[in-house]
């Protein structure tokens, strides 16, 4: 530990010596404390905080999170059967228990400073009292397909009304089985037919497919919610087809997730092996694969483990990778002929067949005049997440990010003291390690600005813990706040409840219930 301190110090001083003309201001900065607010308590927020703590010895960090619980998508996005991925939470715990860090759960940042809802804070209020504010609030919405039938329909079947769900957000489905409070009322149809279609070829699509096809007994020992477990145990889904508009060389999932599909019990992988071969064996394909190790390994897995549709066994469940199809519309309660038996199926998903044009790395899907229809109980859309604007911060509506250069927010020039990290900085792509690196670069920029005096010069008089606490008192954040100790108490409760049923934890899925447990009124 001592070495860490020494090394960091020496870094600061080498800087001081380098900028000899600023020796006075350096001394002042060393004396002075910097107060930083982080908006969003997910991986991006915690990794940014971790790096700032490591790089700068005289900063205090307050992390604001809308939910009473920290860890964002590590808690509510990472699949329950990937507990090892969640190990990063112990680093976040280390950050949260650092004496220079305060966690403010159950505090919504947004709106304007005039709107004084208890427990709400505007970005302007934050910026008025903190030296710097880091936006790391992620991407809370998902992309829609914008096709007819997407929102479903209520149909009369016999003497009762049935809800046909159309296309449900995969993100919401993930949030539902992971216990996110706002997703708990999600309607799902896992029983009216044996197949679900997922649109999109990313890891979220594979997570959803895996959860739908995994043997229920192996899910029972994960931190999936009891409610989800109960619903999935009644599921009649045996076939999941994931559909992408381009080909096998354009998939965006990763090797581990694809390999996991090959290891599911009683599940076969189906894909068009001829298409796979054509794409991989073409001159352009071969060249492309030579330079893309991950894709090459994924194609090898597919070659080794997949069968063509016509060779698939009817006794096994199936995971089908379907290519070159663009969603057109959903038709409800149509007749469907399956092996000579004509049945009414809940939904028919109509697709237009595409062909590819251009080199593999930037191939375009070109529509043809051919259509195909696939029956399903419901569909999930998994074609990407979108960040939303925050009042008081600039937003690039084309790219759906907060515009920035290396993490410094720009709005006709750099906005002093405003930073961005994680998905809202670079768009919703990449794994936790990507977000970590990204957060570190933002933190590095911020610490560099502190050391250069850029922030101090601008904000010198306004930042102090007492001014901050006054503001938090005035906006009644102090009363509604959930502290790190509060969260730990809730977590103990969840872990204890989990042990009783043989799970790592049983998540509380209602905000009021969380608060009751924290306030000891449950």
């Amino acid at each position, binding site marked *: 530990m001592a070495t860490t301190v020494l090394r960091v110090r020496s870094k600061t001083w080498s800087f001081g010596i380098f900028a000899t003309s600023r020796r006075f201001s350096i001394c002042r900065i060393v004396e002075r404390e910097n107060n930083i607010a982080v908006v969003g308590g997910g991986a991006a927020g915690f990794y940014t905080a971790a790096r700032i703590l490591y790089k700068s010895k005289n900063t205090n960090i307050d992390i604001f999170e809308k939910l009473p619980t920290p860890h964002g998508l590590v808690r509510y996005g990472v699949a329950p059967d990937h507990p*090892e991925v969640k190990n990063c939470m112990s680093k976040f715990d280390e950050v949260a228990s650092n004496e220079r860090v305060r966690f403010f759960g159950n505090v919504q940042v947004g709106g304007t400073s005039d709107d004084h809802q208890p427990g709400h804070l505007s970005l302007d209020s934050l910026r008025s009292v903190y030296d710097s504010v880091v936006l790391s609030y992620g991407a809370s919405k998902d992309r829609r397909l914008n096709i007819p039938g997407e929102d479903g329909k209520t149909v009369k079947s016999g003497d009762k009304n049935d809800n046909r769900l159309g296309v449900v957000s995969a993100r919401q489905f993930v949030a539902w089985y992971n216990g996110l409070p706002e997703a708990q009322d999600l309607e799902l149809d896992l029983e009216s037919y044996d197949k679900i279609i997922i649109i999109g070829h990313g890891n979220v699509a594979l997570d959803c497919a895996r959860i739908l096809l995994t043997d229920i007994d192996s899910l029972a020992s994960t931190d999936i919610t009891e409610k989800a477990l109960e619903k999935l145990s009644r599921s009649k889904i045996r076939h999941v087809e994931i559909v992408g508009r381009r080909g096998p060389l354009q998939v965006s999932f990763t090797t581990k997730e694809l390999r*996991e599909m090959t290891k599911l019990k009683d599940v076969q992988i189906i894909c068009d092996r001829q298409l796979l071969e054509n794409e991989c064996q073409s001159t352009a394909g071969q060249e492309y694969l030579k330079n893309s190790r991950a894709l090459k390994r994924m194609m090898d897995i597919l070659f080794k483990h997949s069968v063509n549709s016509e060779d698939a066994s009817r006794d096994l469940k199936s995971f089908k990778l379907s290519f070159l199809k663009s969603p057109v519309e959903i038709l409800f309660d149509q007749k469907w002929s399956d092996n000579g038996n004509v049945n009414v199926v809940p939904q028919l998903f109509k697709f237009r067949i595409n062909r590819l044009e251009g080199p593999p790395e930037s191939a375009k899907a070109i529509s043809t005049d051919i259509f195909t229809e696939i029956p399903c109980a419901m569909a999930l859309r998994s074609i990407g997440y979108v960040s939303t604007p925050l009042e008081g911060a600039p937003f690039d509506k084309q790219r759906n990010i907060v515009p920035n250069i290396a993490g410094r927010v720009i709005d006709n020039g750099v906005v002093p003291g405003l930073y961005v990290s994680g998905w809202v900085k*670079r768009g919703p792509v990449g794994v936790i*390690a990507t977000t970590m690196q990204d957060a570190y670069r933002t933190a590095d920029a911020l610490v560099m600005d502190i050391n250069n005096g850029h922030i101090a010069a601008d904000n010198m008089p306004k930042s102090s813990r007492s001014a901050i606490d006054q503001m938090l008192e005035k906006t009644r954040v102090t009363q509604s706040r959930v502290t790190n100790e509060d969260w730990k108490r809730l977590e103990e409760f969840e872990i204890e409840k989990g042990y009783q049923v043989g799970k790592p934890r049983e998540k509380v899925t209602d905000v009021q219930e969380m608060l009751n447990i924290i306030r000891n009124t449950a």
Partner: protein
Amino acid sequence: MSVAFTRSTAGLVRAQLQRLRTSHLSSTPVASLSVFALRSSFSLCASSRLYRFRQTAAAFSTSAIPAKDVTVTFIEPDGNEVKATGEEGTNLMELAHENDVDLEGACEGACACSTCHVILPDNIYDRLPEPSDEENDMLDLAFGLTDTSRLGCQVMLSPEMEGMRIKLPSATRNFYVDGAKPSHH
């Protein structure tokens, strides 16, 4: 998925803790609170320590000779060199952490991320057993991958590594274009 489980240190540790706890709970229900209190202080270090213990134990089981100390040098992205000595069987990630080397380990050695990526000298790399599929799957996602890249958590110190120089990749490679699709237009 079964692989994810068997390879998951955290899962193993959790399972062990759980076994411990359930036995506690069944015999003395009153003890439950203290066990949970123990967990919170224990959890931060428990997984890596136990894992280390397991590995050292495994190293011992193959030979009765006590573990030797091996000294290697980590070269950080900025060129800074850190000499580190550890017992045979210690993994490179832990060794780096014990010596304050600037190497991450987001999943704590469970082979579920690529943040402890290290670059080994050719001669050592060639002498090691091939990385597992699971390790390769993670290396697929590593920044600055080379032909002799490994995950630090999967490589154990052995006597032939004495004096080995381990490079840490520069993390910034392609960073700002991450996620942007390469385009020829």
